[in-house]
């Protein structure tokens, strides 16, 4: 999707159909994730499943509502870099703390 006002009417109609499909999927997945949580699975499994569902939902929002699926490489590159550092930020402190003295015994 370019940010030009050249009227691609049919193209926009197609996009709107996608938006509505994504909308429906998001609603369904929301109810799914709430439903699964009712089973009170052990924490590691519950976390994995919940984050997986959230990632799918987030992915749909990012790819289709935010048009990332057809976005320019530069933007994708910046986001990829960000995701790498995000993972470092989320993983390294908790790993370091658990590898450390204060968590032993």
């Amino acid at each position, binding site marked *: 999707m*370019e*940010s*030009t*006002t050249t*009227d*691609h*009417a049919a193209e*926009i109609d197609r*996009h*709107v159909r996608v*938006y*509505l499909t*994504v*909308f429906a999927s*998001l*609603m369904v997945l*929301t*109810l799914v*994730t*709430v439903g699964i*949580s009712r089973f*009170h699975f052990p*924490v590691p499994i*519950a*976390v994995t499943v*919940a*984050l997986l*569902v*959230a990632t799918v*939902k*987030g992915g749909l*929002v*990012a790819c289709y*509502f*935010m048009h990332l699926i057809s976005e*320019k490489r*530069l*933007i994708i590159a*910046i*986001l990829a*870099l*960000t*995701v790498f*550092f*995000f993972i470092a*930020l*989320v993983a390294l*402190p*908790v790993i370091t*703390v*658990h590898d450390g003295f204060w*968590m032993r015994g």
Partner: protein
Amino acid sequence: MEIPYAVEVRRDTGLINGKIGIWLFLASEVMLFGALFASYILIRTGSPSWPRGDTMLDVRLATFNTLVLISSSVTMVMAWASLMRHRFETFRMYMGATILLGLVFLIVKYFEYSAHIHEGAVPSTNNFLAIYYTLTGLHMLHVAGGMAVNAYFWGPGAKLWKTNPEWFTNRVEHSGLFWHFVDLVWIFLFPTLYLL
């Protein structure tokens, strides 16, 4: 003096300035909320015990709120699509709906917070509540900020449609990107805080 590529696309990047600008800003927001998620993980895994979300918080209200925010994301993108189709009144309708849905979200959260505070469940009570209030509070500030910008484009800012419709459409798109991001954060916040 005109700044180049504010409205027309630069050929080798294929982008306008505002598009890059908003994505860069969103990248920084990923790191902001990422730090809070990292904190949540660190504190929770370091705790001898941690309450399950549904024992502390109202899942039904939050599920409703999740559906509200998702809907507002749809109306937001439809608002932009309306501009792309040159349907200004439809844009106003969808943008208005987006703002209203945002307002509903905030009102529900107000009721949630009031109920907790009434029971004495405040940030200082325990770390679950501390991180809950901080994460949702910061998120709410972003909802409010997004609503303010959207309200500007629905109201006084809409004048720009008459003088420069292309630029106006782009700015609404960028505002929409911010709004979708706010929705995206909630998509992760909701299960993390309420369901796990």
